[in-house]
């Protein structure tokens, strides 16, 4: 897509307000994007600190540092914070910053709701984290909160957990509605659906997924609330309910949620690979159709998380094949990225390094997912560290690497300064090595039979656990470097050009760097 801006005289419209109220009252998509990104970074560090507690405990066999009860609270909060506080708000932040600029819109369609959807998030996580200091401790039933562990046997703080999930859900739903209304109605003339940048497409699909499944999650926690406090028996077998029903409802939300956390990454990586390969993306329309098929398939595969609950054979076969079918559109995407790079004149700036690592490591996570999809094999792998290795491979070098790549790629546009390329590359290599040293050995100990979610393990798993912990601390410490690089870039640095990257395409690169407070108050003209 090529675009021409006639002039920039709408820039001096008015600038942001001053002081704290700027951030409290802001309805500007760029401000809200920034708030989301900083919030998710704070959550990333808190959730990361919890991961360090987990890995420190697992450094050696035996009980070392924390009580088992506290360990359970750490794994639960680590999962919840990283998913709902880290990855999801980071993607919403990127959507806020980029979607209006990419489609030539002046702002999001519903700016006040945008403000609300961000500002309820800190309260949700304040409530969740405060449960650590309550009698009985924080939730300790794992991020999947299976009933009856999370109802009959839960600590009293479970009610606060339910309330905070409700708030997170409300925030996500509002954010998603905003994205859909913006994309469907505010595209500049000439930006047809099949001309939209892939990040916009990926978010349109993600937003529909969010609107479809976040209310189901809200329903699941509401049923828990009713079982705990109002005497219903949705999940209580003695009252005629069914604990397996909880898993069905949870994973009906949970599996599309997995794609909610990866589809925007697909969009980001497509942009970065085409920019640094200096070629047009290979197979644009097949990328769109692949994302649509993945999204639709995500609704009919949920029970592959529950192969061992005693499903009938027909269901096990159906969910196995349906799951494997997802490898087809995903494979299309991976091949398209490789074909884009093929014969391109590639340079490896930091965003490209992260994007390449994404393609390789995410594909590895996909392959271990295929192994887990094989029903009879899954009876062996279920609830072992192999599962932990699998989903960390798709989430850390998958979703999180894509977010880091996005930050390096667009930060010159956001604050007008180039980041320090040498430090960026250092950050990449430390993260890349750290992530693999942490999670690759977990495949081995998982296949050897080490179960997940225990603070202790049998002696034969000791060596690889020690390696994994060393890797985790390397990865953890490198993120402090990331914080330093981002702060340094915001404070100053080499001025960025408007185009920033030689091969960059798309409307966001046609506005000044840093992007003015208001962009595209008159729609751009598109050839």
């Amino acid at each position, binding site marked *: 897509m090529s675009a021409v801006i006639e002039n920039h005289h709408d820039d001096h419209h008015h600038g942001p307000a001053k002081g704290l109220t700027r951030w409290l009252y802001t309805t500007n998509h760029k401000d809200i994007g920034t708030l989301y990104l900083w919030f998710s970074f704070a959550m990333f560090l808190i959730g990361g600190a919890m991961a360090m507690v987990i890995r420190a405990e697992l450094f050696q066999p035996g009980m070392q540092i924390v009580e088992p009860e506290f360990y359970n609270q750490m794994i639960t909060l680590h999962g919840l914070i990283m998913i709902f506080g880290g990855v999801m708000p980071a993607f919403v932040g990127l959507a806020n910053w980029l979607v209006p600029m990419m489609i030539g819109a002046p702002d999001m369609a519903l700016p006040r709701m945008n403000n609300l959807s961000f500002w309820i998030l800190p309260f949700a996580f304040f409530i969740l984290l405060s449960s650590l200091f309550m009698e009985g401790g924080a939730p300790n039933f794992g991020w999947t909160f299976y009933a009856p562990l999370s109802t009959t046997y839960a600590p009293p703080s479970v009610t606060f957990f339910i309330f905070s999930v409700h708030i997170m859900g409300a925030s996500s739903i509002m954010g998603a509605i905003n994205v859909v209304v913006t994309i469907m109605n505010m595209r500049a003339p000439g930006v047809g659906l099949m001309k939209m940048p892939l990040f916009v497409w990926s978010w349109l699909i993600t937003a529909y997924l969010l609107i479809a499944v976040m*209310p189901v999650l809200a329903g699941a926690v509401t049923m828990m609330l009713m079982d705990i406090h109002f005497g219903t028996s949705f999940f209580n077998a003695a009252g005629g309910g069914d604990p397996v029903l909880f898993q069905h409802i949870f994973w009906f939300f949970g599996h599309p949620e997995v794609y909610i956390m990866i589809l925007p990454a697909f969009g980001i990586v497509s942009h970065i690979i085409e920019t640094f390969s200096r070629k047009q993306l290979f197979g644009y329309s097949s990328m769109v159709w692949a994302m649509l098929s993945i999204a639709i398939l995500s609704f009919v595969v949920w029970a592959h998380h529950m192969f061992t609950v005693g499903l009938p054979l027909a269901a096990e076969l159906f969910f196995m094949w349906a799951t494997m079918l997802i490898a087809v559109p995903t494979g299309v995407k991976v091949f398209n990225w490789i074909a884009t790079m093929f014969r391109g004149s590639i340079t490896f700036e930091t965003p490209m390094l992260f994007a390449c690592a994404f393609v390789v490591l995410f594909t590895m996570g996909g392959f271990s997912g295929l192994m887990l999809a094989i029903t009879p094999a899954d009876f062996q792998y279920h609830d072992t560290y192999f599962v932990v290795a699998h989903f960390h491979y798709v989430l850390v070098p998958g979703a999180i690497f894509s977010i880091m790549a996005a930050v390096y790629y667009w930060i010159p546009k956001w604050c007008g300064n180039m980041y320090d390329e040498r430090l960026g590359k250092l950050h990449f290599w430390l993260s890349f090595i750290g992530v693999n040293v942490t999670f690759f050995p977990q495949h081995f100990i998982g296949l050897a039979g080490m179960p997940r979610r225990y603070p202790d393990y049998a002696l034969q798993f000791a060596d690889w656990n020690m390696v994994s912990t060393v890797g985790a601390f390397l990865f953890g410490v490198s993120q402090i470097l990331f914080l330093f690089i981002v702060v340094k870039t915001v404070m100053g640095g080499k001025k960025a050009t408007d185009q920033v990257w030689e091969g960059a395409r798309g409307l966001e690169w046609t506005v000044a760097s840093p992007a003015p407070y208001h962009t595209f108050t008159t729609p751009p003209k598109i050839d």
Partner: protein
Amino acid sequence: MNSDAKKTLKKLLIAVPLMFAFGFALVPLYDVFCEVTGINGKVFQSDYEDELLTDDGRPLAVQFISTNNENMPWVFEPSEKVMKISTGEYYTATFYVKNTTNKKMVAQAVPSVAPSNAAAHLKKLECFCFEQQELMPGEEALLPVKLLVSNELPKNIKNIIMSYTIFDITDYNDEPMAGHEMNMEH
């Protein structure tokens, strides 16, 4: 905001409560789905049928397992752990129960059959699991299950496990267990 955007917004705002309701609708939908497709391995009460009887049945072992749900103090165990039977004949097995408490209690047993593809060939003329049991303090009883395994049972199945979990439903007694009430009508 233009009118098109308002229309999109309205549609999405309707979709959210609908999906919330759908989450709750899943509760009965799962039961209905399993009933229609018959894939949940449940065994319902069946009538006596002459044509199920054969003289040339093949031998089969039926194992009985009893489980007490949490906080259920009754003694509950099968009279024999394994019963050697042959297909195409009616047998009666019994379970011993005793209310060990000093108050009147009501119980309900919930059955399960493994392997699940044997369920369709297991015919129960009578089962204590189709009813509730009310026992006085210290009272004991022998609960019968009258069953036949049809000759059509897949040849590779050499033994069947019938498992029963007994629940204390004294407090729920006013209305029988929601999920099972529906199933027992059949």
